[in-house]
Each structure stands twice: as structure tokens, then as C-alpha cells.
């Protein structure tokens, strides 16, 4: 057994008696059951007030040099030429057939400088993929800086109040998917982004990954959030929050066997920006994939889980649940499922085979949850 990778906050999680799991090779907190916590309490803290996540396992890959933008454009599906300095967007690395190597955030640090944030389990794969596609281009250096960045996510309606106590930067002026740099909790040069993976307002902070700096930042945020009832939140709540918000998770809704149209992510696909890996295959599909992602809400007792079969009225299999779970805020049982195109286009209830029981589910819109503006 290979040693699990640890974030600089591993000792902090253990001191908080977090339940730890192997998440893609990382020893990560799934929930913090002590002090009235646990997945549901953490989920509700983010919806109602504020939560703090250690997401230092996420990867950071940087493109630098006069050829950086061209290289970014060649390996991503969104149009990075539209980004201004200090702006970020959702994008993806695609396979030649238009499926997902990974979904990513692209930050434009400067005109010749882009930072990708990638999924933890995919860091090495993404880095090798990027190098194989654009590594030999002149004018760009691609570097994996993942070990050098710690990342914390402060999420929830009180995230602005909490972070505002720790910085002189006017973070309230930051628009969604924009970022800046500044001192936070006495740590200089923190990259402060108004981004997140919960469906709430919030910020993601990137800073040096040494243990003292990471613990200082974590403790300062928990202390500043105490008056708002902040909770440390694990990957369990991170998953249920993103699912309620209808966001894709690599290895579930998206993978190297699911294309952009099937995943319903064509909003971030810019076929007209010029050539990039995956473009040809997607252009040929003409927006007509064989399968589509749909959202289901269980109307009978039963919880859909990842991998369960979706059935039609006749009991025939028409698709598969990609993510299914109780939704702690909505208090329903919800699922995203990949189904045949004609099934997605039709109306009427579907059924999920929950361990041998065929449980009725109705179709609902994606996202399940949308915060009030």
C-alpha cells in the first residue's frame, strides 16, 4: 500500500477528530462529527451561514510565457482569450473525442500567465496530458505547482463577513469568478478568488502550503467565523452541496467516456474560438449526443446511489445514476443520471433500481438548488 498524500492541515483535521478517508490517494476529512457536526450539520452551515473546507489536495498547473494563451486555448474548451487579468472561468481538458480528461478552473494571472486548478486525483494525468499536447511549443512553460499551494474554501452567505474581518482588501467588490491578491490573516500575497463548489457565495484562498502558514490561516478563519457559527466541513458535505447545486464531479457526471454535450456543459464549450483538442469530434456531433444528463427527485421511499440503474415504466434499463444522495437542505432524495437521448427528451416519471426495489422518480430541473440573489 502506498502512503496516502496529506495536506498541510492533516494534523489539524485529526485534532478535530475528523473522520478521514482515502480520497483518490489523499488522506482527507469526510466529516467532523465532534461538537454537533457531521455531514448534515456541515451542509446546513454552508447553506445558512458559513463553512470552511480544506481543499489543498486540489492541483495547480501554471502556463507562463508569451505562448501561454495559445497553449491554454489549444488544450481547453472555454475561450481563455475572453479572460481579463484577475478573472477566472470554468473549463475542461478534453480528449480527442470530446470527452473529459478533467474539468478545471482557469485563472488569468496576467497576459502571459494562466493558472489551472485541477482535480486532486487527476493532477499527474492532467500534467502529463498537457505536456504531451503543448509541452513542446515555443514560448510557454507548463509547471505543476500543486505541492506549493494550500487552498481553503470559505463558503456560505456569511463568507464575506468572515473573510472581511481578516483582510483590508475590498473583497465585497470582487465579482463572481474574479480574483485578486492581498494580505489575509497576516499572510501576504494570498490569491483570493470569489469561486466555489457549493452553490453559495464564497471565496477560495490560495497561499503557500507550509504547515505554519496553513494552520495560521485555518485557525484565523475558524476564529473569525465563530460568531457566525462556522463549521469545518469535509468532503461529504462538499459532495452533497455540489450535487444540490447541480455541479458535475469528475468520475461521476464526467469522465473520459462522457462528452461535453452528454454532460450538459456546452455552455462552456466555445467551438468558434479556434482549434483545440476535442473540437472536431464535438463539432461533428452537432449538439446531438447519444445520452444526456438529467435530474431526478425520488417520489417514493428510496435513495438513488451512484451506479444504480434508471428504468422506464416497463422496467427496461434506460440509463445510470451518476450521483445520488439524500439532499440535506432540500430534504429530498436526488440524483443526476445519464440516460438515452430519447428518454431525456421524453416526459413522465422514471424509476431507479434501488437494490432490487424499483423506486419512482420525477424529472426536475438542474440545478436542484439555486440560492436567492
Amino acid at each position: 500500500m502506498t502512503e496516502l498524500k496529506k495536506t498541510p492541515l492533516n494534523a489539524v483535521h485529526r485534532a478535530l477528530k475528523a473522520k478521514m478517508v482515502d480520497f483518490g490517494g489523499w488522506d482527507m476529512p469526510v466529516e467532523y462529527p465532534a461538537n454537533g457536526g457531521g455531514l448534515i450539520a456541515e451542509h446546513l452551515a454552508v447553506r445558512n451561514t458559513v463553512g470552511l473546507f480544506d481543499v489543498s489536495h486540489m492541483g495547480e498547473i501554471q502556463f507562463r510565457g508569451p505562448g501561454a494563451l495559445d497553449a491554454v486555448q489549444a488544450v481547453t474548451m472555454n475561450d481563455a482569450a475572453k479572460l481579463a487579468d484577475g478573472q477566472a472561468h470554468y473549463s475542461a481538458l478534453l480528449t480527442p473525442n470530446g470527452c473529459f480528461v478533467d474539468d478545471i478552473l482557469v485563472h488569468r494571472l496576467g497576459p502571459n500567465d494562466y493558472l489551472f486548478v485541477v482535480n486532486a486525483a487527476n493532477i499527474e494525468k492532467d500534467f502529463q496530458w498537457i505536456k504531451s499536447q503543448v509541452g513542446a511549443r515555443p514560448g510557454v512553460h507548463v509547471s505543476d505547482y500543486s505541492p506549493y499551494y494550500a487552498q481553503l474554501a470559505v463558503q456560505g452567505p456569511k463568507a464575506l463577513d468572515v473573510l472581511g474581518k481578516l483582510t483590508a482588501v475590498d473583497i465585497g467588490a470582487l465579482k463572481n469568478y474574479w480574483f485578486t491578491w492581498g494580505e489575509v490573516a497576516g499572510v501576504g500575497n494570498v490569491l483570493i478568488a470569489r469561486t466555489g463548489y457549493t452553490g453559495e457565495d464564497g471565496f477560495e484562498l490560495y497561499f503557500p502550503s507550509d504547515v505554519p502558514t496553513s494552520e495560521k490561516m485555518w485557525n484565523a478563519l475558524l476564529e473569525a467565523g465563530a460568531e457566525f457559527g462556522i463549521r469545518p466541513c469535509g468532503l461529504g458535505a462538499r459532495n452533497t452541496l455540489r450535487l444540490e447545486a447541480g455541479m458535475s464531479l469528475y468520475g461521476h457526471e464526467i469522465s473520459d467516456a462522457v462528452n461535453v454535450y452528454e454532460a450538459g456543459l456546452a455552455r462552456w464549450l466555445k467551438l468558434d474560438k479556434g482549434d483545440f483538442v476535442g473540437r472536431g469530434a464535438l463539432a461533428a456531433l452537432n449538439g446531438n449526443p447519444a445520452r444526456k444528463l438529467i435530474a431526478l427527485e425520488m417520489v417514493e421511499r428510496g435513495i438513488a446511489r451512484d451506479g444504480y440503474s434508471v428504468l422506464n415504466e416497463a422496467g427496461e434499463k434506460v440509463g445510470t445514476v451518476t450521483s445520488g444522495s439524500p439532499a440535506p437542505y432540500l430534504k429530498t432524495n436526488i440524483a443526476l443520471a445519464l440516460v438515452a437521448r430519447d428518454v431525456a427528451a421524453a416526459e413522465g416519471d422514471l424509476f431507479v433500481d434501488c437494490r432490487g426495489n424499483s423506486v419512482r422518480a420525477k424529472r426536475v430541473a438542474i440545478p436542484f438548488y439555486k440560492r436567492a440573489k
Partner: protein
Amino acid sequence: MSYPANYRYSREHEWIEVNGTIGTVGITDYAQSSLGDIVYVDAPKVGDAVTAGATFGSVESVKAVSDLYSPVTGKVTAVNEELKNAPDKINENAHEAWIIKVEIANPSELDALLDAAAYEAFVSEETGA
């Protein structure tokens, strides 16, 4: 939480409290804490047969499903209906929140179960704690 000395325990993390011929069955505190917030209990009906070592239902937390294994063979005489609307009672007190009561057909099956001390040792071995 301590494991009641008058209960017997299975290696699948169920407990059983025996009163005469009736066994009351639930899941252990270790099981509830491993599962996390419990949101659903799928139990059999009164009159259903259960078999030692075989599944008789399931319990689901937000993130996982876990089968329930009967510690004994027999007939279900009662089902804890309270768990239908309040499955989190198991998280609150796993050793009180029973799931089913069983008319025990073969009392000798109880000999194969662990006592509290042996179960605690089994759990600490499993968790490496």
C-alpha cells in the same frame, strides 16, 4: 459509548438483547458512527422470517448504504416504526434505538456471537485503534 454487558454482538456490527425467547436487534454505536447521519432504515415486516447471518434490511446514511445482518434465525414480532420518521434516533443512541424484535428459533445461535468485551476488541482490531 460503552457496549452493554447484557447484549450480544455480531461481527457485522449488530447487537441483540435477549428476553426469554424474544431478541431485540439494533446496530452498534461503532456501526452508526462509521455510517454518519442515518436517514433511512429499510426493515422487514412483522411475520417475516429472518436467518442468522443473512440480510434482513438496510440502513442508509447520507453517504452510504449498509446491509443489516440478522444475528439469529426466527420470525419478526415487532418493527420499530419510530425509525421511519426519525432514523437519526440510531445516531443519538444506537444501543437504545432497536430495529426489529425476533422470536428466536434456535437459541444456540447466540453462542456464536461476541460478548461486549470481545466485540470491543474486535472493533479496535478492525479500526486499528
